[in-house]
């Protein structure tokens, strides 16, 4: 089913990673620390906005519970990121990878907003699973190995623990919401 809905986000990340030969977006493994901080923040913020869309459109208790968890957890992680950046007196740096993520997200939201009921729930669940798989791959294999600041590396490692738990939870949601 809705592989096509699997997310502009996943697609954007794949494009950004160069998997589809994009000449526009940056390779996430080549971002500097401030660009990584920006991209990680944007990725979290996108998932918060995905969750708000789910709370607006879904009546499924499992979907709503997951969405509330995404808002609570990603807001907490992003707040910790901002606290660290304040401490380091650093300002996150916008970049093509972040822009590709956002562009994909906007495309995805436009598609998702046209859905309702079970169709939306299935699509949201599948998108969250794909999104977390993609983001976890980027954070684990591109951001963490390449980030230079030790505190940011630790923060990303702790965040990845959380995101991996989200990925498992999303897989359960996909199974529960059904096809």
């Amino acid at each position, binding site marked *: 089913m809705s592989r096509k809905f699997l997310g502009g986000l996943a697609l954007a990340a794949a494009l950004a990673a160069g998997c589809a030969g994009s000449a526009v977006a940056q390779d996430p493994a080549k971002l500097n620390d401030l660009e990584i901080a920006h991209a990680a923040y944007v990725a979290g913020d996108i998932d918060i906005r995905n969750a708000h869309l789910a709370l607006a459109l879904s009546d499924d208790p499992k979907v709503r519970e997951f969405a509330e*968890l995404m808002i*609570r*957890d990603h807001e*907490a*992680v992003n707040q*910790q990121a901002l606290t660290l950046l304040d401490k380091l007196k650093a300002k996150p740096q916008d970049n093509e990878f972040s822009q590709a993520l956002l562009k994909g997200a906007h495309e995805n939201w436009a598609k998702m907003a046209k859905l309702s009921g079970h169709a939306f729930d299935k699509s949201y669940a599948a998108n969250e699973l794909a999104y977390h798989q993609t983001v976890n791959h980027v954070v684990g294999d591109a951001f963490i190995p390449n980030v230079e600041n030790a505190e940011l590396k630790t*923060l990303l490692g*702790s*965040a990845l*623990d*959380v995101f991996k*738990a989200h990925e*498992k*939870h999303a897989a359960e949601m996909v199974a529960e919401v059904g096809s």
Partner: protein
Amino acid sequence: MTPVTRLGAGSLLWSRRRLLALLPLAALIRPARADSAIVEMHQLKFAPAEIEIAVGGIVTFVNLDLVPHTATGDVFDTGTLRHNERKEIAFAAAGTFPYLCKFHRHMTGRVVVR
């Protein structure tokens, strides 16, 4: 040296002999349970996941994760603990008290009070 001092030394010697005599009995007694314990919420797990404390003991739950957690059982609830927040829970009665994080339900633990 004053008589009080000599008397004190003699009492200490007597006490040591009594203690040594009681050692075999002590071996029969079960190891003491802690009056208090710390459970860390870390990497989306409770650590240790199971603890044993004495009646009247206190468990301190500490959240080391970036995201909020709870330790919620049938008879106790820490409420929401954010990063680096902690909450002490006193256990006044014996029993086994399972709990979980109500946000991350795969996070489970157990307090055994004896």
